[in-house]
């Protein structure tokens, strides 16, 4: 196996990303969906960090964008949880499948 470089890190990031997408697709619990989102964002962070290490041009940008991602995730989690709690208070469930009022 070749020595560890950019590609290996990107592959790990891709695993996180895809796991996040699948998680979003199959979890019926709203918080499970939220966890999927966190996984997706983490995959992105790993990519940014890998570029920051292995690419001269992104030395600062990679880190900065990964930082932004982390902060964004924090904000997103706060809002999403507030929505989930509201949902729970109104419907007494956290099953996202029961939130289908937007059905066409």
């Amino acid at each position, binding site marked *: 196996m070749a020595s560890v470089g950019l590609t290996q890190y990107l592959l790990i990031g891709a695993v996180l990303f895809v796991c996040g997408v699948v998680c*979003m*697709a199959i979890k019926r619990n709203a918080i499970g*969906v939220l966890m999927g989102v966190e996984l997706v964002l983490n995959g992105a962070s790993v990519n940014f960090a890998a570029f920051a290490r292995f690419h001269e041009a992104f030395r600062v940008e990679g880190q900065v964008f990964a930082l932004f991602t982390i902060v964004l995730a924090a904000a997103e989690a706060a809002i999403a949880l507030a929505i989930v709690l509201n949902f729970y208070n109104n419907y007494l469930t956290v099953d*996202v*499948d029961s*939130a289908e009022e937007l*059905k*066409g």
Partner: protein
Amino acid sequence: MLENPGWLFVAATLLPLISFILLLIGGKHWGRVAGWIATAAIGGAFILSAIGAAYYLPHSGLFGHSHSSEAKPASQEEHRGASHTHGARREHNHGHEYSSLLERDPAEPPWQGGLVWAQTSSGESGQATALRLGFYVDGLTVIMFLMITLVATLIHIFSTGYMAEELQPQVEDHQAYAVRAGRYPRFFTYMSLFCFSMLNLVLADNLFQIFISWELVGICSYLLIGYYYERSSASNAANKAFITNRVGDAGFIIGSAILWTYCGTLTLPDTVRLQRNAKGEMVRELEPGLFSRLRMPNKDTHGDPLPGQLDKYFGNFVRVAPIKPAAEVADTRYRLAENGGWVLVFGGHFHGEDLTEETAIAASSAPTNMGLSVMPYWALVLAGIGVFLGCVGKSAQFPLHVWLPDAMEGPTPVSALIHAATMVAAGVYLVGRAFPLFAPEVLLVIAYTGAVTLFIAASIALVQTDIKRVLAYSTVSQLGFMMLALGVGGWIAGLFHLLTHAFFKALLFLGSGSVIHGCHHEQDMMKMGGLYEKMKITAVTMLAGVLAIAGAPLFSGWYSKDAIMVSALAFVVHHPQHILLFLLPLITVAMTAFYMFRLWYLTFTGKPRDEHVYEHAHESPWVMTLPLIVLALFSVVVAWGWPPWDPHASALEHYLDHEMPIYLHPDADNPLQDAYLAPVRKYAEQPEAFPEIQLPDPHTLAGLLALLSAGIGFLLATTVYYWGYLDPEATQQQFARVYTFLWEKWHFDAVYRWIAVRPAMVLARICRWFDLYVIDGLVDGSARATVKISQWDGKFDLGIIDGLVNLTADIIYAVAAWLRHVQTGLLRNYVLFLALAAVGIFALVSYILALVG
């Protein structure tokens, strides 16, 4: 270190504005907090001013060293001829020093800055004219800032106590027989706006900005005089003040317009601005101000010194016509009293080589030539008189003095702040600031206006019985002193008196406020008496104020009044035909002492004349007495120097002397005013240089005369009102006509009613008729026509346009109803769709790319 500490003063100016905006937005509900905010804002302004002064003083060279004198090349002075013995003094006054302004360090005073408001390009010369928003901080600005912010802070503190009853939800107004809501925050809102306007006025570096502040100050005065607007007297007084001031302001704006027309700028000092030159680079360019445009600068636009012989031809200030041979011009350049003639105005861009007699002559026919233009001498005089007319209105000079006594309808702190310490000082300040613009004719007008005012006002004050009105007329009279001093060339004396007067007059007004507050809003002195026992602090502090204004030795008024008398004496010695300019103030000094002591004796000594008032009288709370004490302290010591018993060793006077603009110094080269004033100033400073005048030293003479006069006034007042040797009632009966004349205030109000108010009312009725029947008729007719047209338009709109719009909507609705089945409403399905779409799009793109190759 700050790069340009002038911004400290800008910040100090903006603080009250911020307070005003805050209070305007939410002040209504804040109650007592509103007062604290306003007080904090003006207090902060005082602190910033103090920091600014702390920067200023080490730089000003007052303490004997100057930063800039070494840096300056001496060669500039060589071209200026032998008359410039005061080169060293010039270093502190960069007013019209061309090169130094471009090169100097912004941390060196005077501090300047600003931005261009509106820019226009005038005529074929392409010379840009601009209205500025700028600041100019020199010694005068600094000391005015300190005085205004300090006095205003104290008055704000006093007001938090004095206005406390406005905090109640319901206030009963005994004079208007009305019950109304308390208006505590409103008072402080106006006060904040006023402080901002006043500071901005002092800060401004151009006449236009001064004019704006001038109007703001006027509107604040209007609002505050009419603070108790339920009382018809208050609202009438507010109207009177406002309208009277408008007369003066019309003069101001005419004067400004003349200067703008001929000089193309309203900025007073020279300024530097960034300009794009022909190559497109940004360069610092010098923009000469009014002062420079009316005098020949010593450098041309490129910083090269002007050829020496031009100075020989023209001097600093050129009168072109009547055209005379060169030698003769050189001889007659100071003979400005000739009628007619033209003034050469130096515009933006000019070269020294171009400035020959021929150019000057050519300039008199063409509108602009080589950055030069000409201005008729009468226009200069008219502009000066116009600007001065503004000052007449604001500083309540004859014949526009009638509003100030009526303005006493406002709350007493307002009287103290606006009508004693600051706003009325604005007129004097402006005369001082714009002094170099005034031709000798204007100065004479100023001097006579001041002399007449001070005498008339003092004579009216002799018989008034309302405590605040006495003070009001005394204010008018003292302002007259200042104007007189300025008019006879005593620039230092006038502004010196302005500063000292601010303190003791604020003290007197606040003292009277304390008395009025203590006596439950009784203002008639005839009902007071014997209050000393009840209000000791007020009485003692007011006595300090009385002594100061009467000119008792060692009190601040003594120093400044002496300076004025010396100036007047020096002037009269040189112009004996104007002997009245010395006699009137001399008599008035006696009257001042008389009516001030009369006020004090009537209020605080003797037997109580109204038991009811006496029983209820009480000392005021500490928030009101504390400012009194502080102001009393300042009234005594503010003018002290070393030694204190020497009237001409005052530190404040020394400071003003040092900060005097360069044009005003006895040896300065100022042809506009030199022939008229230079010998006067020289005599006042060095009487030994005039051996032909057989008089004692003017300082001793004027000082002794004034002291004697004040002593007479004091003795007379004591005789009548303290010892009771003379019965005032009997005297009044004996001189009934004089008494009535004075009591009716020289019948000014009646005269104005006949010549101004009545015709205006008639005109107003005519206008009302025209408005009601002609204009309203036209408007109503067009309204009816519009209604008809819109009815037709409505039908078109409903039928055709709405029909089209609804059709579109219906179509979209039908399509959407069919498309909505795609939405399952399941969140997880959407995620799957997204992922699938990503894969699909990628596959499609790679397929297409593969096809393309």
